[in-house]
């Protein structure tokens, strides 16, 4: 991955408290796994920034090297890689996700 891509990714990763590299957009996810993570974040009412990797092939491939994680989606909280779809779903089910977000000072309001 060239330096330009690395710095582009790094600035995206740090451009918000919660950043989701995904296929498609939060309103129109274009992959079931990306949609699943969007659903979890919406359910917890957590504001997040969606980065559509389909818009930029360099980011789509570079993000896998950046986190040494081979798939999309990838969730970052305060610049730290948290996981892909499986891990986010598992953390949500065990309550770890809510706890982790709160300890990072991110307000969570579970939708009724």
């Amino acid at each position, binding site marked *: 991955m060239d330096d330009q891509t690395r710095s582009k990714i790094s600035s995206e990763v740090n451009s918000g408290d919660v950043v989701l590299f995904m296929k498609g957009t939060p309103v129109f996810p274009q992959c079931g796994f990306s949609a699943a993570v969007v659903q979890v974040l919406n359910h917890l009412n957590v504001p997040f920034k969606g980065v559509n990797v389909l818009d930029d092939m360099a980011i789509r491939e570079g993000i896998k090297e950046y986190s040494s994680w081979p798939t999309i989606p990838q969730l970052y909280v305060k610049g730290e890689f948290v996981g892909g*779809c499986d891990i986010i779903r598992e953390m949500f089910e065990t309550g770890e996700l809510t706890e982790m977000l709160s300890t990072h000072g991110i307000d969570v309001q579970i939708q009724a």
Partner: protein
Amino acid sequence: MPMSAGDIERFIKEALPDADVVINDLRGDGDHYSAFVKSAAFSGKSRVQQHQMVYAALQGRMGNELHALALQTAVPEDA
């Protein structure tokens, strides 16, 4: 060339010889599997690290020949 459940299990067991591995073919297309992997090698590792160990065992096939692997990892109680 899609992967077979047997290939996935073999790669994982080559890297994690003690692992219990259960593979389910989710769609019968050789591209969408779920895997449950239990190994003592995961002990003390975060979930992300555990999953990365399984992906490393698949030697770059994850996200290429293998489009989707719903993964769950665990550590044996006595580990």
